């Protein structure tokens, strides 16, 4: 496989570019009002076709997360981070809780046991980070 800077070949690349940018905005890596990398910069970084990179950027622009300033480029829109975080919270159950419950059911772990496991893991993590 070539160096795709972490993109995988099994999902449309423009979706992945959009996801990466969205994640960066949600994590605060790209602040609101900050200029996002240009299509050509993204293309060079990910080693992908500039048209594909542009399509990824446009997904976020169409969503109102980025705004175009004529002649200068794309910038992170006001409120973009909050909207993305809200969306991620909404997806949390579906993406993490549901699979957790299905796998637990398959392994015969009941809900109480699951709570205990989560608590333990949480303590460990806090301990490790201290």
């Amino acid at each position, binding site marked *: 496989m*070539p160096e795709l800077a972490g993109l995988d*070949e099994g999902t449309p690349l423009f979706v992945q570019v959009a996801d990466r940018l969205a994640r960066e905005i949600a994590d605060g890596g790209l602040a609101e009002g900050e200029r996002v990398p240009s299509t050509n910069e993204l293309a*060079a970084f990910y080693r992908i*076709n500039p048209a*594909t990179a542009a399509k990824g950027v446009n997904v976020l622009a169409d969503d109102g997360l980025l705004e175009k300033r004529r002649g200068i480029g794309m910038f992170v829109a006001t409120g973009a981070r909050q909207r993305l975080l809200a969306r991620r919270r909404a997806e949390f159950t579906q993406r993490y809780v549901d*699979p957790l419950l299905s796998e637990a059911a398959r392994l015969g772990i009941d809900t109480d046991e699951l709570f205990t496991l989560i608590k333990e893991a949480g303590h460990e993590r806090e301990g490790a980070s201290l």
Partner: protein
Amino acid sequence: MTPAISCAGLTRRYRDHTALDDINVAISGGTITGLLGRNGAGKTTLLRIMAGQEFPTAGSVRVLGAPPAENEAVLRRLVFVREDQAYPDLKVGQALRAASWFYPNWDRALASALLDDFGLRAHKAVKKLSRGQRSALGITIGLAARAEVTLFDEPYAGLDAVARQVFYDRLLADFAEFPRTVLLSTHLIDEAAAMFEGVIVLDRGRVVLDAAADDLRGAATRVSGPCLAVEALAAGRPVWERRRLGSQASIVMVGPLSADDREQARSSGLDLTPLSLQQIVVQASTGVLAPADEASSETERTSA
């Protein structure tokens, strides 16, 4: 928009075989398109006809709005980098100088930057170059020409992985700055896939796939797990490949997956692996995919 390159009913027959059989494609300007397929699928013949170096038996090809053969108005806006280019008794620098006379947009700075990248020396005789160095010379000419239509036919025989990466990076960078129509035939699909906006797959002289590259990524999924669960998920969908071992099954299922599908797969313990572009192309060129217009009947047959 008129396409930069279009073929209508393009057919090329040789005495003992048909190299191209009724090719109909249109390639939009300002795109990088991958021309893929197995050896002998007809890629080189198609590119040669597009470059005016070979003549069709039937049908027509138009490049930048006109037939390319013997048409200098088209030819000077087109560069064709061949895998097996024969050079006369020239030095590398001379070959580049000659190219600079013929190509109106020739970029001398880019040419010398590429020579550096590839470690080619201008005073070296072309016939003393290794296979890889010859490929590097062809690539240098193809990129520095900045021709509106740039055709690469397996341009990197003998080039190592590092030099191929140089080629991809340079092509993307220069393309971003000076958009043009690029058609690149290659065997190394995995490597080059991310550059392509469109892909055309040939098999035995026919177009078996002509699509936007990103539409193909994730367009088919390998589903593996318990047989019954696999079949339940795949019910009513086209399937390209079916394998079974005991109670386990593995199939390739065509079509996008919804959130419900994923949930169903998860709850029944199925593994989902999206097929890469390369894997889809392999499927297409092993005859699983029929030409686009017959696709529906074909998928019925394979899913039955």
